[in-house]
């Protein structure tokens, strides 16, 4: 007994415990991630190199043919343009508005907690319900937006039919849902900025706006980078809003002329309406690469905020 306890075997067990346990504790995450994250990712990469069609019993290896086809596919480039357009139209105003709202909420307001919780409310509503209601608001014949335009003497707009008009309408849904969420993140970051910086600036005679520009924004830089990157990832994956914007009609074409079909929606159309799994997987991987590149670009752009 004593021999066994103090022999090399015990030392080996001790070594394993010290060196091995940490890996063991983090294993559940990586096992789960491997099963539901990594495996689908790699399997999609494999499928993207085949011509698998759900309706046909056989599939063949086609190499990079799907990617080659994608590069010359007008509908893919159209979808990419729509995605970038909707992303820009939604992210830029959204983050600016969030900054402003956070700045307002950071002052001493009456019922501050109420307002702070209030801005998060749009984010907890169902995306399906919100999109369907917005689609009604932007209706051609009886929509409230056109009714308001009529009140001020402007011509009604067929929001769904136009490219820019449909992008604006869809961007507004995104802005409505996510501005409050970003505002709360900014607010949390603002509260970590030491008060004495503002006091010193006030003594130096800096006004509210100068303080906001010279103190608040630079101090928020890491947070702004975070929200910009997260919004980019979300913005490029957008699918539910454009899909439901033409609710009831059932097909994921994003309007009669694909005027608001995003890359995510195009992927869905190819995969689950036309059953071209190989091609849809190629779109998925291309979209993934685009998001990585865009996130890096975003990172380097937002890093310059302080320097400029």
């Amino acid at each position, binding site marked *: 007994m004593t021999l066994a306890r103090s022999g090399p075997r015990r030392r080996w067990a001790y070594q394993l415990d010290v060196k091995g346990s940490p890996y063991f504790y983090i294993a559940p995450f990586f096992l789960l991630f491997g099963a539901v994250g990594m495996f689908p990712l790699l399997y999609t990469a494999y499928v993207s190199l085949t011509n698998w069609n759900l309706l046909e019993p056989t599939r063949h290896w086609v190499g990079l043919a799907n990617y080659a086809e994608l590069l010359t596919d007008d509908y893919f480039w159209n979808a990419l343009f729509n995605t970038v357009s909707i992303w820009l139209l939604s992210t830029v105003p959204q983050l600016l508005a969030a900054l402003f709202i956070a700045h307002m909420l950071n002052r001493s307001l009456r019922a501050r907690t109420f307002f702070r919780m209030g801005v998060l409310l749009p984010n907890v509503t169902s995306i399906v319900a919100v999109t369907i209601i917005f689609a009604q608001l932007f209706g051609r014949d009886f929509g409230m937006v056109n009714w308001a335009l009529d009140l001020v003497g402007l011509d009604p707009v067929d929001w769904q039919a136009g490219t820019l008009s449909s992008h604006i309408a869809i961007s507004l849904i995104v802005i409505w849902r996510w501005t409050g969420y970003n505002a709360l993140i900014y607010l949390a970051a603002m509260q970590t900025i030491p008060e004495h910086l503002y006091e010193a600036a006030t003594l130096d005679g800096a006004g509210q706006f100068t303080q906001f520009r010279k103190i608040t924004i630079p101090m928020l830089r890491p947070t702004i980078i975070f929200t910009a990157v997260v919004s980019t990832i979300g913005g490029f994956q957008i699918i539910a809003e454009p899909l439901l914007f033409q609710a*009831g009609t059932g097909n994921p074409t994003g309007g*009669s*002329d694909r005027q608001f079909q995003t890359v995510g929606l195009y992927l869905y159309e190819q995969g689950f309406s036309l059953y071209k799994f190989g091609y849809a997987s190629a779109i998925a991987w291309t979209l993934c690469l685009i998001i990585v590149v865009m996130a890096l670009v975003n990172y380097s752009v937002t890093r310059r905020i302080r320097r400029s």
Partner: protein
Amino acid sequence: MSAAKLRLLVGVLAVGVLTAGCGGSTGSSGDGPVTLTLNLFGNMGFKDLYAKYEAAHPNIKIVERTSAYNDHHRNLAAHLATGSGAADVEGIDTGFIAQFRAQPERFVDLRKHGADGLKDRWLPWKWQASVAKNGAQIGYGTDVGGLAMCYRRDLFEKAGLPTERDEVSKLWPDWASYFEAGRKYTANKPEGASFFDGGAQIFNAMIGQAETGYYDASDHVVVATNPVVRSAYDEVLKAVADGESAKLVGSSPAWNTGFAKSQFATIACPAWMLAKIQDQAKAFAGKWDIAAIPGGGGNWGGSYLTVPAQSKHVKEAVDLITWLTAPEQQIEVFKAHGILPSTVATYEKPEVKNLKNAFFNDAPVGQVFTTAALNLKPQYQGPRAGDIQTAIRDAINRVEEGKQDGPQAWEQMLKDVERIEQ
């Protein structure tokens, strides 16, 4: 407990949680009670019948799940391809039956369960449409969408058109005269009420009457070469240019609003559309009426019940669909929901033939729809007919939205159809 033991315990727990998450429940089989699942889309009118069937078969329990039209058929395709997830009974619409008929090995061949003896129940074309190339019968027909033309009496009166259904039917023996009546209507139309709901829906009704639609009998797409398709397309766009269309996309929320706001005076209505109109246009009971469809006959929609080969209760499932599609049950469905059976034997029954509908000004719906169903010329449906239909709908919408002219939209549509074909 020592620290080492605690660590071990935590580890064991973590693994236990993981494996519990992976283990699924296995399906029951054997002599015990059998639960049959049905995956359907929309309301097929069976709900009241399940209790009756369960009472007669104490060991059977029926669970119905419904989802939206397109989602349902997409899920079914995925479940069949992956070999799991399909219900014991799956509903399939006419627009998709050709696609599924092409994979008969994934369905139970009903001939092995006495289908041949039941063949005479159905309209011959309905029976034929679910027969695979290898002769297997994959489904039993439920309803057909025999076509009529629903119209608003009050709007017709205001525009100076006849209002009695026989006179209205005489107004449009064919589509040219229907559009002509539309021009007269449009000349003094009540404010905000166009002649028909949307060009794509009218096009649908017109093409449903043609002997050949989007496919020839050997599964080749003939959209570009079939003169009927192009002439119907041109005729509809002419009527759109004349201001006859309310430019609404079928099944969209705006289209639903259109019923309530009286945005159109006529709509091509298969039997299953009546329930829709009654839901959406509640305030206009008695103002709607039903006339004959221009051109006579025609079909739009209608469904089948199938049993996927992966079902664990094939015999019980086949028994159930045989019972549900039997004439006695189909009569009940028609009486309660107005959904027209495809079982031809029911057409002679007085409770079908003489059925009237108060909402539609006591229109003789039984007689109108059975006549339409008997008159229609069956059309061969190819595998991707539903997707082609959508491509043409988008083309017509592009013209209605003023984004393209007819020939431009046609060219773009042909390219879309080519992509669907590959």
